[in-house]
């Protein structure tokens, strides 16, 4: 087996036993990228020399017996929305031009402290706005299970790269499902931490009160390891929380007896692809066999979540993206005065979906509409959060399908409004309420064989519980051992 096909904990063990070198692991990843990325297009760019240099340093550290770094020598790729010093930062947009970040995000510094080899800029929907990677200014990424299909988004490049063994793990960002949905569609594990768990310093902001950085990995243990490495309060992020960081991996013992899993009646309204429905139901049954209790719960304000999300997210985005104006950095189109410079630069630099959302966000904040839209949406958000906190008083986790369907074809968005609604509803409440959520593979559709994801939502700082549940299920079902077709 090539080293790039391992999980991080498997590679770390081999490296520690000196059965392999970090350089070889990085070379294997680079070889795989060479082999498949021409067709997959998960990477916008990567610096092979820099990656190999980091791997070399890791080997030196391994040689001198540095056993305490949990991710030493492990190649981890990064969504191009997270700043890495000296690397290009494009957010898959033309507006950033040739911008190179002069600083690294806190999560990158933490990964480096953990010894990881941090490399690559992974494709995404422009400024994280989208759920297919088709909104990238540099072309869509393809799903490794079927190259005619999308990998999901906005962290599509991250999910595809992990599923295709181009890296051992990846970081993505999640504002409305952008880690969990592509993880489900590509057959890997994706976790959105509780809001405030992981520092946002260095994450190019889409919606400040909804964004979180999280791991996309090949199995649940890896997700736990990466989460532990990147979590913790950061003095540079006023919204990060002083909650101690547990050893997330240590709770993965398979014992989920007595844990209560809620199924929300408002989510069971039909409209799911029957194969997805069957796979998720089977997964829930499996969890019951393993000792969990299934409980019906109600989330009464579910029907308002999508509206609240689109108002809040776009409002915050309209302000967060105002800085992209060509004055201090990025691509500039000149004008006779500042206003002309702004409109030409942003007109040329932003893609259509970004423009749509900025305009919508500006509108809902505008004089005369603020109370009716933004203010009201925030109040509704509180009601939705109360729904979840009330539910978590009775259950330890909530199970849902991650998506209503498997991956659709490039260029073909679903025409079914119910499916469009469902594709948002399962994931966005998690961001609106700030709770945590993980997607774990729970099967495949037939003809074509496409991954299906089971989502487990946990209460604030309840990552240990959902990881434990996800891990127990994963180990009993073994979906994670499946790989995309070799023809890839």
């Amino acid at each position, binding site marked *: 087996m090539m080293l790039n096909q391992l999980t991080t904990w498997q590679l770390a063990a081999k490296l520690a036993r000196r059965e392999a070198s970090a350089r070889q692991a990085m070379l294997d990843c680079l070889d795989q990228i060479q082999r498949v990325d021409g067709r997959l297009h998960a990477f916008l760019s990567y610096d092979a020399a820099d990656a190999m240099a980091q791997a070399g340093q890791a080997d030196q550290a391994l040689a001198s017996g540095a056993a305490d770094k949990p991710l030493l020598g492990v190649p981890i790729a990064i969504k191009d929305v997270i700043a890495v010093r000296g690397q290009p930062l494009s957010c898959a947009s033309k507006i950033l031009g040739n911008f190179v970040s002069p600083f690294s995000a806190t999560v990158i510094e933490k990964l480096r402290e953990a010894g990881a080899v941090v490399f690559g800029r992974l494709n995404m929907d422009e400024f994280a706005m989208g759920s297919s990677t088709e909104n990238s200014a540099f072309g869509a990424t393809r799903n490794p299970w079927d190259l005619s299909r999308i990998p999901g988004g906005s962290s599509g490049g991250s999910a595809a790269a992990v599923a295709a063994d181009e890296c051992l793990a990846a970081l993505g960002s999640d504002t409305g499902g952008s880690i969990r949905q592509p993880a489900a569609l590509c057959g890997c594990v994706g976790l959105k931490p509780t809001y405030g768990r992981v520092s946002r310093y260095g994450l190019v902001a889409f919606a400040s009160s909804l964004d979180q950085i999280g791991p996309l990995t090949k199995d649940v243990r890896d997700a736990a390891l990466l989460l532990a490495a990147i979590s913790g309060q950061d003095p540079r992020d006023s919204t990060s929380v002083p909650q101690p960081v547990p050893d997330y991996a240590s709770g993965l013992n398979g014992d989920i007896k007595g844990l209560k899993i809620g199924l929300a009646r408002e989510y069971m309204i039909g409209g799911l692809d029957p194969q997805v429905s069957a796979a998720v139901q089977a997964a829930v049954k499996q969890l019951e066999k393993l000792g969990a209790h299934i409980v019906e719960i109600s989330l009464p304000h579910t029907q308002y979540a999508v509206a609240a999300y689109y108002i809040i997210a776009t409002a915050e985005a309209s302000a967060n993206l*105002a*800085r992209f104006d060509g004055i*201090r950095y990025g691509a500039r189109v000149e004008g006779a005065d500042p206003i002309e410079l702004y409109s030409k630069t942003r007109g040329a630099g932003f893609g259509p979906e970004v423009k749509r959302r900025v305009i919508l966000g500006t509108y809902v904040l505008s004089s005369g509409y603020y109370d009716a839209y933004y203010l009201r949406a925030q109040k509704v958000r509180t009601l939705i959060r109360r729904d979840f906190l009330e539910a978590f008083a009775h259950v330890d986790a909530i199970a849902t399908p991650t998506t209503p369907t498997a991956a659709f074809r490039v260029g073909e968005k679903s025409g079914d409004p119910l499916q469009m609604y469902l594709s948002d509803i399962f994931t966005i409440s998690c961001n609106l309420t700030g709770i945590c959520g993980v997607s774990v593979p729970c099967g495949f559709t037939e003809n074509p064989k496409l991954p299906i994801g089971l989502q487990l939502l946990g209460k604030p700082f309840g990552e240990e519980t959902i990881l434990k549940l996800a891990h127990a299920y994963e180990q009993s079902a073994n979906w994670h051992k499946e790989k995309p077709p070799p023809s890839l």
Partner: protein
Amino acid sequence: MDYEAVIGLETHVQLKTKSKMWCGCANQFGAPPNSNVCPVCLGLPGVLPVANEEALQLTVLTGLLLHCEIPPFAKFDRKNYFYPDMPKNYQITQYDKPSARNGWLDFEFAGGLSRVRITRAHLEEDVGKNLHFDRHSAVDFNRAGVPLLEIVSEPDLTSAAMAYDYLNALKEILIYGGVSDADMEKGMVRCDVNVSVRPRGATELGRKIEIKNMNSFSGVRRALEFEIPRQMDVLDKGGRLSQETRRWDDAAGVTETMRSKEMAHDYRYFPDPDLMPFAPSPPWLELVARRVVELPLAKKQRLMRDFQLPPSDAQTFVSDPPLADYFQSLARQTNNPKALANWVINNLRARLAETQTTLADLKFQPAHLLELMALVESKKISSSIAQQVFAEMFADGESPGQIVDTKGLAQVSDTGAIEAFCDQAIAANPGPAADFKSGKLAALNFLKGQVMKLSKGKANPGLVGAILERKLKR
């Protein structure tokens, strides 16, 4: 028609912090362009703001100095608009829940005491500086992110002169509190004026006109001295005023309409999701309360009351806190604080200014000054000799007693000796003597001067005058 002016002022004050409001860059005037910048204050992709603790304290401190309520909950909002000097194209400010509100400021005006109510004081960040050249413009972001306190007054001001005095009083309070150096020339204070006129005694407000671009407090006064009559004139001629923003042109001495190339002002305020609300805890408020100082006006009134000082002396001390401290430490040890004040203000302060030294460099002991005063009071030396002694004290640090003895400066009050000097002077100046006898009273001064010369300045001047007169009138 008799009109009255209604004026409100919005004063923006840079806070005296070491670093900027949201990042660790230095808060420093006059640095080379774009040398105090970092990813945060440049609005680079991925950055986040972190509040400057000292700025929060100075904000609440100012609120306390201005007798404001400090609400238990305040927050930061984004004020959204596009302009090259604003890196994020939104300014972090406080919109509807400021850190201080409903206060007042008392100050001296037109021979009495006036009170202006303070609507609110809120914390925000400053923007960069635009520079315009022949064919292009540039921006210096050193100032972007500097903490700014906006102090808004109710429209309680009624004249240009009153506005001027209010601004100076506010500046003094801010300096006293250590909140700001408030140096308008270094851009530490900026002022926008809102002014309207209405028939005297009316209750409804007239059209409010905003005036910008004044660079000094006297500029504010000049702008109002132009604008108020201008508005009255328009109304007198039957015209109408529209709510607008006007620009003061100091060179031309006029206000003019600002061409509205500014975008429509819908700022789309919303709470900044990157920052926690500002809800000060009681212990924290306690900490800030301990930084509250005696206000300048209160200090002036106290000095006048406790030490029977005239207003001008008290004001001098208020404007020079170290001098005031020096004075106060000695004033309790003398029964003639006014005399002490004279020495401290007329002699000590003057000498310090001449020699460009400070109280810290003083060579003589504080007690020496009291000693000097005692020597004069006991008539051991004359007041003119005392000036000499002071000069020596200041220069060498010797005690006055020592100086008087060494230089033999003791006043001569021995009437016998003075009689002798007087006889000498009269004999040597028969002309002036005769002049005095024939009614030219001024000639006495000449003769007095001669006696002082003969006695090398040591004769008691009061006695000299009396003895000369007696001799001449014989």
